[in-house]
């Protein structure tokens, strides 16, 4: 019970201190809006293109809302040594890091529903398979948050966290089938696409929104879950090796 008091308060502190600040909320609203507008205009077609664009916008909103936020906040706390306070807390290390990432996961999940709400005014969402859509959104948020944690451990300066985040994020936008189908990628890039977690999340989202997906849902969600586990374990191992050395 006591460790859950710590868990809840770490989550609450991060939400209040970082994620619920006005600049982040406005970023969470404006960013999906800008992406939706950009791809809507680029498609050159009418409202019928919204279902094809929506999964990509949802995935990008999560990715950008989560990865760099977590990487920056953890790097900031490591730099001013307040992260040591958490490392001294009498709670299991795994639970501590889950608490630290859960704020970003919630923020990313909330970001995902901004374009969905906007799309509700433009298209009929009754055909969306929410039983696939929601787990896919949550797993993309978890994977993105753990990617942010992995980045945070690898860098020492806040600006490095931003730069290193983009190193992962921008290739993902173009390689993971968010806006351009993987089948259209050059042969030598296809293996890379399947090595990225967002490919499986985007596939599940596409399937849930308009039915066009490559892999069975269960495979998409299981592979995404496996990416989450591997990224989390790698991050924990790196924190133990680098920060408790």
């Amino acid at each position: 019970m006591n460790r859950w008091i710590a868990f809840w308060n770490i989550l609450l502190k991060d939400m209040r201190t970082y994620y619920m600040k006005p600049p982040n909320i406005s970023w969470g609203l404006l960013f999906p809006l800008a992406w939706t507008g950009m791809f809507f205009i680029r498609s050159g077609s009418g409202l019928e293109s919204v279902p094809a664009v929506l999964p990509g916008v949802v995935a990008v909103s999560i990715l950008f809302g989560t990865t760099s936020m977590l990487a920056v906040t953890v790097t900031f706390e490591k730099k001013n040594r307040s992260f040591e306070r958490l490392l001294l807390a009498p709670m299991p290390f795994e639970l501590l890091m889950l608490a630290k990432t859960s704020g970003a996961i919630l923020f990313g999940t909330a970001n995902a529903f901004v374009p969905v709400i906007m799309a509700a005014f433009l298209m009929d969402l009754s055909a969306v398979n929410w039983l696939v859509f929601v787990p896919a959104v949550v797993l993309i948020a978890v994977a993105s948050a753990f990617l942010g944690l992995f980045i945070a451990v690898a860098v020492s300066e806040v600006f490095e966290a931003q730069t290193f985040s983009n190193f992962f994020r921008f290739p993902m936008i173009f390689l993971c089938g968010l806006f351009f189908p993987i089948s259209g990628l050059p042969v030598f890039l296809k293996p890379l696409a399947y090595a990225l977690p967002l490919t499986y999340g985007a596939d599940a989202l596409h399937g849930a929104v308009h039915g066009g997906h490559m892999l069975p849902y269960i495979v998409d969600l299981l592979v995404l879950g496996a990416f989450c586990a591997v990224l989390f374990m790698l991050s924990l191992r790196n924190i133990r090796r680098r920060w408790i050395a």
Partner: protein
Amino acid sequence: MTVTAGAASATGAALADGTLGNGLVLGGGAAVEVRGLAKRFGEVQAVRQVDFSVTSGELFGFLGPNGAGKTTTINMLTGLARPDAGSIVIDGIDCVRHPRAAQHLIGVVPDESNLYPEMTGYDNLCFCAALYGMRKAERCERARELLDVFGLAKAADRKFAGYSKGMKRKLTIAAGMIHRPRILFLDEPTTGIDVASARQLRQLIADLHAGGTTVFLTTHYIEEAERLCDRIAFIVAGRIVRVDTVAELVQPVMDKHVVRIACDNGMACGLGDGQGDEEGGIGTRLVAAFPHLRFTLPAGGGIRVEGDGPVRVGPLVRFLEDQGVEVAEARRIRPSLEDVFVTITGIEADAMHGDREKTGGPR
């Protein structure tokens, strides 16, 4: 107050009757027991074969110059660094095998104030209390209580980022003791703060100790350690060179008679820059005139005179004035831990606290 047998063996100072000569008895319960602790960072051996134990309820000083290995040792004791070798037992818990198992027992005040700058003083304390699983009502009450104790009640709702250095230090100490730890690790708590705040903090540490908390204090202020600590360990270049009670440490120098002479034109006479002991210099002339006394010319200026019996100041002053030195003050000095430190380590005490004039070093 008791001291463990382990501690006595580390000092080699235990008397045959099992006491340390000042009423301290061997065999008490160890709050912290460290054996053969070692840590290397690349080419640098930061800590080597460190042994000591801290008795429950003791205020234990860990004294050494900057870079001696104090913070590395404290990081290993508190689970923020992994030792390369050795054992750490805190309240019976093997902290090398289970580094997080003793964290509910300890409070840590790092050498830098590391609370959350964007949160208020009150919120910081409440958050730290929550990390130890304290319930809301309890942590609110405890936070208010500590804000009162540390004189920060009026600043409770101000952001930590806006606090002065002294206030930050006080709040960081309050955060370290929010969960009423049995053992409190204080890493240079008075470094970098003004004199009044440092004095207040030392009183708070003394009160904590009087209340039964075991305190592990690292400092590079010798007088601070002498004033506060039951026992002191000297660490130099990562190695413990001596562990003993303050009384035992000071005993060998208590028979010394020391006079410090301050000169107005000391630099002009070559006294303040270490040149006075050259051939024909004032140091050489003093030794020739007073062969029963020992003279040293500290880097900070002036002359330090030591004798095995009382030092007669009059002839000394007259001699110096005849040599053209303007004597501003001649003062007898009580031998202190500083003398012990210099004797044992060979390190000039001034090197330990070069920034004392600007900060909270003891007065």
